[in-house]
């Protein structure tokens, strides 16, 4: 059992979301930095989609009742190693309140969190009114259970000191660093003048404090249509860059509404979801135009690295068993 001693600023249970319900208006949800959660789950021998915690800006303080193997990643927590298995002894407190290098820390637990699912997923959706942790963020006094783990914390190798190369998660960047987001032209890119499109890709934007799991809001020189034009609401995607009439772009994340009525000037590539989701208020962001072929190549490289990690974990586990 895991006891929540302090809830943190905005801590929720997340997995890889609930695709398949978007036609009924259900946001896909899931981890805002899905690759980070997949890496951590892989490290622990979990299914990639096992539920873990997503901690935003200030993490929770947890206490484990029995020996538990965890992995932390995404932003870097002060006092705890990232991207490796960590054995937490019974009674030990995990203080995740301070972290840097990103907006979100993920905590994966060997065996995954055991929480009720809604429409096939444990992912929390705000304002859904759904029961339990599918409908709300963590609160002080909550207790969480883990499923049965494939790792035995009492075995010596469970917390062996090897870790994933940090380059696998390029989203971890020092505060104030410029985050480059590779992007394709969006479905309404041609609505904007050629000059405006070039300016969009040449401009640095600043991440607004009003950002949330629905979208990262950017501030900078306004991106405007040559003349007002109405878009009939249509499907949007993770990473779609919407431009509302005020000209301040919004990069849509996991809890985006399924439909959007603002023109989309660009589409951030799948591989760079983490880089945008980990942007903290005040961080600088720019967009770099890539081709579809380049986007696919980047995705294949990222997926191949995850396959390699999975094999490595399997070998290490077998070798020590």
């Amino acid at each position, binding site marked *: 059992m895991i006891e929540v001693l302090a809830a943190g600023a905005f801590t929720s249970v997340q997995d890889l979301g609930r*695709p398949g319900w978007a036609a*009924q208006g259900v946001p896909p949800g899931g981890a805002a930095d899905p690759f980070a959660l997949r890496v951590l789950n892989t490290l622990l021998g979990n299914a990639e989609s096992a539920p873990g915690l997503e901690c935003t800006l200030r993490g929770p303080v947890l206490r484990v009742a029995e020996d538990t193997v965890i992995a932390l990643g995404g932003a870097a927590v002060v006092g705890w190693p990232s991207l490796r298995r960590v054995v937490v002894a019974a009674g030990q407190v995990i203080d995740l309140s301070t972290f840097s290098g990103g907006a979100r820390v993920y905590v994966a637990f060997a065996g995954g969190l055991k929480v009720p699912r809604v429409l096939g997923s444990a992912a929390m959706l705000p304002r859904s009114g759904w029961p339990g942790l599918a409908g709300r963020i963590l609160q002080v006094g909550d207790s969480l259970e883990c499923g049965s783990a494939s790792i035995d914390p009492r075995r010596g190798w469970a917390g062996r000191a090897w870790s994933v190369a940090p380059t696998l998660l390029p989203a971890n960047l020092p505060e104030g660093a410029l985050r480059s987001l590779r992007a394709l032209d969006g479905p309404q890119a041609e609505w904007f003048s050629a000059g405006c499109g070039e300016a969009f890709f040449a401009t640095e934007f600043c991440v607004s404090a009003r950002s949330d799991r629905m979208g990262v809001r950017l501030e900078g020189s306004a991106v405007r249509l040559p003349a007002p034009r109405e878009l009939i609401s*249509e*499907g949007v995607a993770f990473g779609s860059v919407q431009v509302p009439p005020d000209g301040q772009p919004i990069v849509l994340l996991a809890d985006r*509404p399924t439909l959007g009525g603002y023109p989309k000037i660009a589409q951030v590539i799948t591989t760079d979801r983490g880089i945008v989701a980990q942007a903290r208020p005040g961080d600088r962001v720019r967009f770099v135009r890539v081709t579809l072929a380049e986007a696919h190549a980047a*995705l294949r490289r990222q997926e191949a690295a995850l396959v390699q990690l999975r094999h490595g974990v399997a070998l290490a586990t077998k070798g020590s068993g």
Partner: protein
Amino acid sequence: MVELAASADVAAVRRIQALHARMRTAPLDGVLECIPAFVTLTVYFDPLRLAGDEGRVRIEEWIAACLAQASEVAPAEAASPREVVLKVRYGGDAGPDLPAVAAALGRSEEDVVALHSGAAYVVGAVGFSPGFPYLLGLPTELHLPRRSTPRPRVPAGSVAIAAGQAGVYPQATPGGWHLIGRTQAELFSLERDSPALLAVGDRVRFVRETERAP
């Protein structure tokens, strides 16, 4: 994304509905899901399973085949779309914006209710929040822009109008539409296999809830 019309009307919605139905009957491996909305159908796919030019061709051929079959079956399906009747308590606490709406339109509250409940609607899209239906068919007499200041919390079941459309809020969410009534109907319920009460293409009518006998 497949775009079938330039303006959102019932004919466009029927074609999108037929295409979506066809795609669900004959799914393509690698396609994750599809979102129908007014005049478009957005196809989400796994770029690793439908990769490069070959993947693109397969998706395009699949869409073309679905379109061809959809246009064959559409008339029969469109002849008998599902109709859902929603009972509404208009005005008062249930519809706090009814007086302001009537004033803005220069009509009586009674007129607004008669126009709203007298119209036949078709679901053009489901989105904004789980199960929220965007309804086409609002009489032009009731067209008015959104509220200048959105409410931070709209009660679940609120029946609303704005921007030439009608809608119903399934959950308590923020919202910028004018609230003219409330329904007890559950627009989204996890108790159902298909949680959303309404789907694109469904017909909807609003009926004034009659006063309870004392």
